[in-house]
């Protein structure tokens, strides 16, 4: 397995605020990685560290085996679209493609021209007058036409209406296929990424709560419902991630390699919510024990 991103005890501090706290992750190459978490969870910080826009306070990060943005050739391997897809307002769409061509040795101009045409971008229009969706398309085109090995997209669909989101993501899948690149994309809404990602990282409050291939994660988690008076029997090594009681009946999300008796499969949304809820309701350690 080649590794796209490896972080070791990665932390980033802004003044007194710890934006990313002791994050250790290994993300295989060639995946479409969804990075999910509430606003302020540290998603942009982690993506910024991946792109090399910012440097870590402590710990280390390697992207495709090297320190991010270490040199021009490393920059060429990673395409990054920052949040809100910044572009030069006074440059036209065509000029942005010239910019890309001048600044990137592996620039694929045919791809860039074709893609802007297909997305209905007028080459003579100034980027400042593009709609949010068009700007996102332009920024993505520039990042993709670099022909790097990894695309890092920070909230690429946040500015889009629901219809455009769906189209954007479907289009992303298409050209990821065409270019053969790995992708990391973040969103504060799981719904945005779950349609496309095959690897999931859940961040909350600067910490990784969950990370893994979607298939493995779904395999390892189960939903159990316990009726009042029923005794809970869990296999050895099982962990209750989240339990919810209503009317005496409790529903649990359990992590276990072997499915417990009466277990039902979970979907990605249940799973993510379970981890995020666990992260936000700060349960003291003894109480956690009592739940088990």
């Amino acid at each position, binding site marked *: 397995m080649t590794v796209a991103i490896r972080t070791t005890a990665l932390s980033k501090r802004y003044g007194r605020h710890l934006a990313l706290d002791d994050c250790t992750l290994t993300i295989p190459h060639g995946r479409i990685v969804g990075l999910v978490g509430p606003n302020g969870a540290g998603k942009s910080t982690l993506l910024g560290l991946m792109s090399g826009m910012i440097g870590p306070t402590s710990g280390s990060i390697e992207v495709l085996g090297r320190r991010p943005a270490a040199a021009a050739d490393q920059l060429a391997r990673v395409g990054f679209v920052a949040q809100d897809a910044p572009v030069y307002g006074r440059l036209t769409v065509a000029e942005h493609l010239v*910019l890309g061509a001048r600044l990137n040795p592996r620039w694929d101009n045919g791809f860039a021209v074709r893609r802007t045409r297909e997305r209905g971008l007028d080459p003579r229009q100034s980027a400042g007058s593009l709609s949010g969706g068009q700007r996102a398309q332009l920024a993505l085109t520039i990042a993709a036409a670099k022909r790097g090995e990894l695309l890092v997209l920070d909230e690429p669909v946040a500015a889009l209406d629901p219809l455009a989101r769906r189209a954007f993501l479907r289009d992303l899948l298409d050209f990821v296929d065409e270019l053969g690149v790995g992708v990391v994309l973040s969103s504060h809404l799981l719904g945005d990424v779950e349609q496309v990602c095959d690897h999931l990282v859940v961040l909350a409050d600067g910490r990784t709560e969950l990370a893994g291939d979607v298939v493995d994660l779904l395999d390892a988690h189960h939903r159990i419902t316990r009726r009042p008076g029923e005794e809970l029997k869990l296999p050895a090594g099982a962990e209750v991630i989240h339990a919810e009681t209503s009317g005496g009946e409790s529903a649990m999300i359990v992590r276990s390699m072997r499915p417990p008796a009466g277990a039902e499969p979970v979907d990605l949304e249940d799973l993510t919510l379970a981890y995020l809820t666990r992260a936000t309701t700060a349960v003291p350690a003894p109480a956690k024990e009592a739940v088990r």
Partner: protein
Amino acid sequence: MTWLTWRQARAQLLVAAGALAALAIYLVFLGGAIRRFYGERIAGCEGQACHLARMDIRAGFDDTISVAMVLLLAVPGLIGVFWGAPLVAQELEQRTDRLVWNQSITRARWLAVKLLVVGLCGAAVTGLFSLLLTSSVSRYDQVVGGRFLALSFASRNIVPIGYALFAFVLGSVAGMVLRRTLPAMAVTLVVFAAVQLLVPTAVRQHLVPAVTQTVAVDAAVLNSGVGMRLNEDDTFDLQGYVADGSWSLDFSAPLSKADGSSYTGEDARPCLLPEDVEGGDACVVAQDLHFEYTHHPAGRYWTFQWLELSLFIGLALVLAGFGFLWIRRV
């Protein structure tokens, strides 16, 4: 990267080129007028006519030349404020750094090209303006002198190039550190103005050790427009002496007699001949007085021009070096 830098700076560079062209036309016209005046009234003039012509060239051209000088002094400040301060700050403000720093080019190279292309354009605009002004008013300068005067020195020949480079890099680095254009503009203006005040008043004269020379008071000295001032302790100072083309560092110097003692009111009384100015002067000359003249000789003009240019280029380089360190952690 050169293309992008040119594309981003195109509008401002074209405006500057247009303004420079307009100025050039005006300065060539002004230079023609000054040279014509010089050819008709001053070249080969004699006696009183010469004196009048010298007064007239001042009266005729002082105002226009002053305006051009002040404009030239302002140009580096404008370059620092309007080209330097937004250079990086605007990218940070509009978050386009996130776009451009993720192309296959390091930040250091990005900054280097931006600083070089725009900075050299700024230096060229300022340098051309300065050379045009210097050559246009060369006859005026020759007649009026005073090229070590703070305003004249700073608005002739090569030093304005140094000011422009310094102001530009200062603005860029201020923008990089403050991350916002408007505060960076303000800081650039204040710091540059402070440096432009500090250098002529406190720094320039110390770049080379001054020369102190004993000057005998003869008729030429007395006719050069000096004054004698009686101090409260009954001694005399000679005021306003400037040897031809030199830079006098003290406006007044105590007058001494041949034996080294102070020249007093008592000593001066025999020469007080209000009815006969020439006789009075001859009487003073006969008293064999002298004073100490602390100055930089005229021949040092280009030494000072080069030193000051080097000083400002050095400051610009130091600031740029800091900028390259800083941009890695922006």
